[in-house]
């Protein structure tokens, strides 16, 4: 679509984004603390964390807009501020509001074209790529959030950069827009570009990213491929029995180290509820039947990626609460 993927392999640093012991304090607030991770070309990397985790501050330090308190962030081995014609190396869209409302979409792009070093015809190309050709001569003030996201993306593509940094690009997109964004980002990564996408919801980018970098409260909590993160997911079963003692004895006998007692709204005197990890409901039911332990509830609970993400970022509800919202009785 744009230029060949070949230019991504011109030198060792090419397309590498490296964040090295990066910290930033705003007064007494430690927005980012000793954060290190690396992002490579040819892959889409999800930069994840709850709102206020320090994602945007990190990206702004990476892009030279915010000065780190300590540590460094480089693209192609250089700090952003030292890159000549940075828009040819890095395309970044930080928030959907960075437009003058009175400017048309095409004029917004034309403003930056001289600094990218491209003719105005390139503006029409990126408008076409992002599906904005029809809206090119409309003022941005009348754009929906989704259209602004597309225009932000179009701006990042002006210089055909090998590194793309997008802050919450799926915000405000409808399902169709998210599907479009997904295939678009995958396409850009296949061309050999480095694509770094932030989001506060893992499920939003789950089908898009190859790698994840997860932060919470300014610190790195997990960094791996999506496949490795997937391995952290597990199934679990919650069981309620009027014979609490019997149930715990059974659990300790059959699944030592994989069970825990949990609170349950249906639990009364003598009853007990346990949660057993990495097992299916049929196995638990059969074991209870064989051990003659009466069951009043048997529920499967899948700890999906989002749960893993929430737990990693310290947003997970307590086990007992989540068990109580299980529903589905086997």
């Amino acid at each position: 679509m744009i230029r060949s993927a070949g230019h991504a392999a011109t030198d060792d640093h090419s397309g590498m984004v490296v964040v090295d012991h990066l910290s930033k304090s705003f007064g007494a607030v430690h927005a980012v603390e000793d954060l290190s991770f690396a992002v490579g070309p040819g892959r889409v990397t999800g930069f994840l964390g709850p709102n206020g985790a320090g994602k945007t501050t990190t990206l702004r330090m990476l892009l030279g807009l915010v000065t780190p308190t300590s540590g460094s962030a480089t693209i192609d081995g250089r700090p952003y501020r030292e890159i000549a014609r940075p828009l040819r190396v890095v395309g970044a869209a930080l928030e959907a509001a960075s437009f003058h409302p009175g400017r048309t979409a095409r004029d917004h792009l034309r403003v930056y074209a001289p600094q990218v070093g491209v003719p105005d015809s390139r503006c029409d190309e990126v408008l076409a790529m992002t599906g904005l050709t029809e809206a090119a001569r409309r003022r941005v003030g009348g754009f929906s959030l989704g259209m602004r996201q597309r225009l932000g993306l179009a701006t990042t593509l002006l210089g055909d950069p090998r590194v793309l940094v997008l802050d919450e690009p799926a915000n405000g997109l409808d399902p169709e827009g998210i599907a479009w964004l997904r295939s678009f980002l995958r396409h850009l990564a296949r061309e050999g570009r480095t694509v770094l996408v932030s989001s506060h919801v893992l499920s939003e980018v789950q089908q898009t990213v190859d790698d994840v970098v997860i932060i919470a409260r300014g610190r790195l909590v997990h960094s791996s491929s999506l496949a490795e993160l997937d391995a952290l997911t597990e199934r679990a079963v919650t069981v309620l029995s009027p014979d609490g003692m019997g149930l715990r004895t059974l659990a300790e006998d059959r699944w030592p180290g994989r069970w825990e007692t949990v609170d349950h709204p249906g639990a009364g005197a003598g009853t007990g509820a346990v949660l057993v990890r990495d097992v299916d409901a049929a196995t638990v039911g059969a074991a209870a039947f064989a051990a003659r332990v009466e069951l009043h509830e048997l529920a499967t609970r899948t700890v999906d990626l989002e749960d893993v993400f929430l737990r990693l970022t310290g947003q997970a509800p307590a086990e007992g609460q989540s068990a109580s919202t299980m529903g589905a009785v086997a």
Partner: protein
Amino acid sequence: MIAALRSELRKTMTTRMWWVLLLTMVVYMAFLAGVMAFSFAFEAPGAGAAGPGGEEGMALAPLDLALTVYTLAPTLGYVFPVIMGALSVSGEFRHMTVTPTLLAEPRRTVVLGAKLLAGLPIGLLYGVVGTLTTIGTGAAVLAALGEDPMLTDPEVLRTAALAVLAMTVWAVVGVGFGAALKNQVVAVVVVLAFTQLVEPVLRVALGLVESLQEVPKWLPGAAGEAIAGASFYSASGINELLPRWQGLVVLIGYALVLAAVGRLTTLRRDIT
């Protein structure tokens, strides 16, 4: 720097503000030039009306009358290029376009330099249009009242050209001011208050205090008028003006000092 400059010029020309303010200035200047030409010319023949402390009153010689009217742009209309210049910085913060601007050119001194330079053609445009408006309206009214509009006088032509220069420098001062005070609403209010009220009052008040009489000519408005070499204030004897070249140096000094303050405050901070 050339690329950053082209980018800045495109920023200005792709929004409506430049021509809205330009049209407003034309209306304002035409009104002032018409009224002032009419009132001075009307008083001139009599010359007997006693002015404040002078036997000759406010009556002006034809050349002084023409110069006073033709320099209304740098005397009172300069607020328009100043606001245009200030908006080129404060507007970026208001609409958060400062983020893509600094992504395109992370060297902040280059960004500020490009904005200051981009103020020159903008100020030139406002200067040419503003001065032509005062001359066109003023000369028409003077001629209609039987006064000589002095349009062929070399002093009038030189003064008109320097009035354009003053307006051009004013736009650059505006850029520096916008950099020093990035809040758009506050910047516009301060510009209007200072240029339309504070400085005129200061000039009259300080002019009355003997030990402070030398101060007003160093104020930015007086420095701008000094570039053109004439003004309503000097013609009416309220203040003296600096020599032209000194006025130019002083006004450019204001632009550079404000820009330096902006570089060390607004443009040194984190963009969050």
